[in-house]
């Protein structure tokens, strides 16, 4: 499954970079993630609960960042296992500085599923992914608003 999109955030690129490198914040804003434990500098153990159409599962696995090119881009590798199947995703994330305290995030990647989630409900997965992505960026927007409020 293709994962791609663009979102514009109202903060400087460097601020965004710091925010999305912060595991505590990520746990807070990423839908479904309940635990993110740092394994080493660029990899985490993640536990998440996600409902995809008719199937619901508790996923456990790894989340790692590679090819970091601060503050412009990185690759996000997610490998999650559960009783209802496994998900492996590789996503390239690009942060473009638009000036005027605006940053554009472009993400582009592929996710592969197996097991029950692959054969039951895969037709709704891209819809679920889009809605989770939207929730993520909405939450990130809110965090930025909140930060600005504190700063201001």
């Amino acid at each position: 499954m293709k994962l791609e999109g663009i979102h514009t955030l109202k903060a400087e690129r460097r601020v965004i970079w710091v925010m999305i490198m912060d595991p505590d914040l990520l746990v807070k804003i990423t839908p479904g993630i309940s635990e993110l434990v740092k394994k080493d500098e660029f990899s985490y153990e993640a536990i998440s609960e996600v409902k995809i159409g008719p199937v619901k599962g508790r996923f456990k696995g790894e989340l790692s960042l590679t090819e970091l090119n601060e503050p412009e881009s990185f690759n996000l590798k997610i490998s999650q296992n559960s009783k209802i199947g496994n998900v492996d995703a590789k996503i390239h994330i690009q942060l473009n500085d638009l000036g005027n305290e605006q940053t554009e995030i472009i993400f582009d990647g592929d996710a592969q599923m197996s097991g029950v989630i692959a054969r039951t409900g895969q037709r709704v997965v891209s819809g679920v992914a889009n809605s989770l992505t939207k929730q993520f960026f909405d939450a990130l927007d809110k965090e930025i608003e909140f930060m600005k409020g504190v700063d201001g």
Partner: protein
Amino acid sequence: MSYIGKSVKRIEDKRLVTGKGKYTDDIKIPGLTHAYILRSPYASANILGIDTSAAKSAEGVISVFVGTDIEGIRGVPTGWQVNFKNGDTMKEPAHPLLVTDAVRHVGDAVALVIAETKEQARDAADLIDVDYEVLEAAVDPAEAIKDGAPLVHEDAPNNICFDWELGNPVSEVDAALAKAHHITSLDFINQRLVPNAIEPRSAIGHYEEHNDHYTLYTSTQNPHLTRLLLCAFVLGIPEHKVRVVSFDVGGGFGSKIFHYTEEALVIWASRKINRPIKWTAERSESFLTDAHGRDHVTSAKMGFDKAGKMVALKVDTIANLGAYLSTFAPAVPTWLHGTLLQGLYTTPKIHIDLKAVFTHTNAVDAYRGAGRPEATYLLERLVDLAALEMNMDPAELRRINFIPAFNGVTEPGYQTQVALQYDSGNYHGVLDRALEKVGYKDFRKAQQESLAKGKLLGIGFSTYIEACGIAPSAVVGALGARAGLFESAQVRVQPTGKVSVYTGSHSHGQGHETTFVQVVADKLGIPMEDVDLVHGDSDAVAFGMGTYGSRSLAVGGSAIVKSVEKILEKGAKIAAHKLEASVDDLDYANGKWTVKGTDKSIAFGDVSLTAYVPHDYPQGLEPGLDFASFYDPTNFTYPFGAHIAIVEIDKETGKVTLQRFVAVDDVGNVINPMIVEGQIHGGVAQGIGQAMLEGAVYDESGQLINGSYMDYAMPRADDFPSFEVERTVTPCPHNPLGVKGAGEAGTIGSTPAVVNAVIDALWKAGFKVKDIKMPLTPERVWTAMNN
């Protein structure tokens, strides 16, 4: 008593409508344990390690087995060998009961967990840790044969199991095409289908130490062949120590012909744990492991002369076999497909070239029609399309190309260019009747008028032939079958004149217990109540080749008739003795022998009693009245028919509504018209399902992404109109009942009629679309109109 030709209500229904049927999962045995099979979530992966320790100590668990525990067993075999064009033997990789080093499709069996309850077995399977190294998968058969594609089996380069050809020399076909006035060509996919018998497969293995015997209860179409393969080819158990029993079977459609790994696993493991083991598939497992059907990628050309006469047909097909060779897989795209490319037509030059390909997907084998629907789809799509392209009437184009009627008795059979000799046929007859029934001329007028009102109506034709009544053993043996395809029957007359009939055919919904009893009661002139049919038990029935390929009545019924004839022949000797007459002076009718021209007679029951109480008895004649017979047909049987679909397309949404479906089939003589019509209805529905709704979808990583009833579009009651079904009768000249078989006809004929109707509607509305990929979803039809 006359029963043949009557719509007698079914005997088996009494138990089935009251919930008293006995399907395999209904069986309970003291000490029964339950199995769950852990299956691969990946299409292709190496197994680096399996940790079963947590599962083994889980609550209720009796045993956990992995592939390395099953030493020395290669796996389940295939029953048909097709050689490469150059004579090399096809690639025949092992299909292990449990994998050891690698998985080759999603659903491949990795571990067997046996516990006191099904839930405990399932819970424990969740605790098994398998370390997979995930690999790239070969999924699309057309891609799989390219250099550099991932290999399913190391020893099958380019994933090719075999290549194959049939027909006239390709040079002759090319030459005929070069001279053709018009060539219609079509590249298309005959998509993969999931059989979806509503009863999931189930098997119980029961080893009993006290007599060293095994019993396999299994939901199968083919109990004896299953026993033979299980004993002689998989586990090496002496055949006389194994009983295979199959009571009621909840549909099969081909998918339960085959010997599956789970059957061997429960038998093998039952001896290991010395307790009976039941395994029943969950629907998800059925989707992943019941052998699928169809899955051809085809490119075809049909050439015509100026008058519209067919001059040549050239076909290139890639057939997907999946990851392992299922029991009859090699036969389906070859001898059950290529041989049908003559259709009902006099095409003088025909050639098919075929590649059979392994992919990292579930196995593909016979599914209702098996090869013949693919051949019919190919021909009938080409014919309708040619008619549109040449601006000819599709019915007329067929008529001028039909083989003229022949009865196969005083007129010879028709020798095709592709190996078969048709038995008897009247192809104009079925088409004319179907046209009349549908009101063809009026329809064309209505079509034009409705187009003016913005309504898209279409009519589609399909005139098909099939080869069934499978099959003459010597012929199929020469073609690579590793089994004979005869049938056995025993008719045992009890001393009181009641009759037990034993057949190697095995009903999974066809109503053998009624039809076969009709035949016997009719021939013996006794009430049906006095006759019972025994089937599906290898201890009761001498041997059998099962029910598939529309063979039960044509082959199994013929074996029964042979036994009945022997009963009557011996009975006449006893009757003659008792009546003090000669055998030649006796008539047999209405259950008694009568001395011609007198009122002296003896009833069937009295003769039976005499056979078992032979006090006053012909000298030298053996007591008893009990005869076994084997019948090996001399040819296939060739049912045929004309199917017509009328559809309406909603222009805004692309939704196709099937308004009418007319089927005129000729299945030879008919024993029970009600049952035959039921077979046609069901077959037609499955064919329409392929055209409009169904299709297994694998993604590029080899995941079956519609492997559930929420995702796979099973046909529902409101997807269909009432079917309009009729018959003509052209008896089969070479079997004693004159029957041809009705199980697959509906499915073989119906699919192209529906697709042709949609294409017709589009052309008449100005959208000159040659093909829309099946199933014809609203999206695909809409796209065809809006591109």
